[in-house]
């Protein structure tokens, strides 16, 4: 009888630990998703600013058309990528580099540099870059914490049982 009671208590304890670990993994995964949502918001903001920027610069006839076309193409590619974070990371890095090239080339066009619209867009894009960098840092920190939990004992058993998958980092390839 005592033995039976002990078995029941042990089962209850194991179930309790199981539930705590499952909830903790779920909360961790949720935090990763929330952080990704934040990164996504900032990336979308950048995508939305680019058409205005391209239109503003197009008016300057001598400006390198190839660069503008490249930015437009990469932006379209970035909007289409929805599958993997690694792929998205690569495309967004390419977009960021192209924008930096555009701003570097714009230094040779004093009229463009003085344009209020261009300055406003440049400021907003710079601010968005800061937000993306910060959101990326938060996302990667949450991802690291989640991935570590997935691989630790005994949460890895629960992770395996309920098909918790590890999250990808949003890398900066500089």
């Amino acid at each position, binding site marked *: 009888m005592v033995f039976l009671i002990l078995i029941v208590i042990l089962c209850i304890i194991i179930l309790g630990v199981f539930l705590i670990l499952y909830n903790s993994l779920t909360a961790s995964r949720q935090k990763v998703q929330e952080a990704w949502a934040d990164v996504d918001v900032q990336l979308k903001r950048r995508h939305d600013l680019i058409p205005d920027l391209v239109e503003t610069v197009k008016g300057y006839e001598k400006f390198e058309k190839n660069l503008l076309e490249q930015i437009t193409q990469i932006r379209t590619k970035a909007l289409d990528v929805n599958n993997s974070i690694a792929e998205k990371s690569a495309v967004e890095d390419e977009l960021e580099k192209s924008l930096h090239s555009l701003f570097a080339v714009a230094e040779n066009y004093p009229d463009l540099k003085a344009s209020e619209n261009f300055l406003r867009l440049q400021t907003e894009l710079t601010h968005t870059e800061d*937000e993306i960098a*910060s959101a990326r840092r938060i996302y990667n920190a949450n991802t690291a914490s989640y991935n570590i939990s997935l691989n630790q004992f005994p949460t890895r058993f629960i992770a395996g049982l309920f098909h918790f998958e590890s999250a990808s980092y949003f890398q900066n390839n500089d």
Partner: protein
Amino acid sequence: MDDSTERWDPIKSIQTDIFDESRTELLRQVNFYKKYPYIIKLIFFMCCCLVIAAVLFVVFIKLEIRLTVLIIGISVLPFVYYYKSITSLQNELILYFLCQKNNWIYNPKLDTEDVDGFVMNYPAIFDKGHSSSLEDQVWGNLSNDHVDFWKGLFNYTEGYGRDSHTYQITVFALKLKAKIRCPFSLDRAGVHGDRSDIKTESVEFNSLFNIKVENTGEEQEVIRLLSPSVQVRLIDFGKKYMPDTIYFKDDVMLIVFGLDILKTKYTNFIKKVMVDERDENIFYTALSDMAQLPSEMIQFID
């Protein structure tokens, strides 16, 4: 220092420089020690001799244990008192030279008059204990970031008689360029319990800070202010300086530290009566780091 200097004050709006007397006294003390630098060493030497004499006394004249502890304890007091007064003088002098260099206002005196204003405007921070006072106040402006600031040591006592204990916290106030509609505070996790009204998407931020929103229904507004870049700055600041509380109300940000974070590290009057520039830089760096926070947040305040 120019007597007509005016600087921002968190309760009075403007603080005018009128504290010549206390600074004159400060400079008089320092000039005395500069003229007779051996005096500090001599006094410390005499204090050490007193302790040694007391120890020898109790060793050779075998007294009961309580009397022994009392005699040794009393003999150590002058050493401790003098050490504290020299350290305090060092801290004050560093602040004095820094303020002089940057055209800030400095008041080293103990002030009990302005405390009521702070208690009334910021009760969450200053409504503590009794017999409160402010000292080592600085009013200035960081020209690089165009941020007005105030700094002070807030002393208060809790309990009475034998159960009384005096606490000292360092408070920095920074002026924001726009008003925040919803007062809230970020308490360092574990300092004032672990209750948090809301959590952000950052695990690291939530492990460092508990967010307390003063008025219910304003949680969304607070989350909007705590953008990723603001959170990252707060995380870095929190890890580096470990503030007890960061409090936001109207156009003021208050940062509270449990201890005086500006303790001297390199200046040592016992060795040489001279302020080490590195200690000035520590203060200036800490202030600059604090000024980054309102600069980052301003774009999210309507």
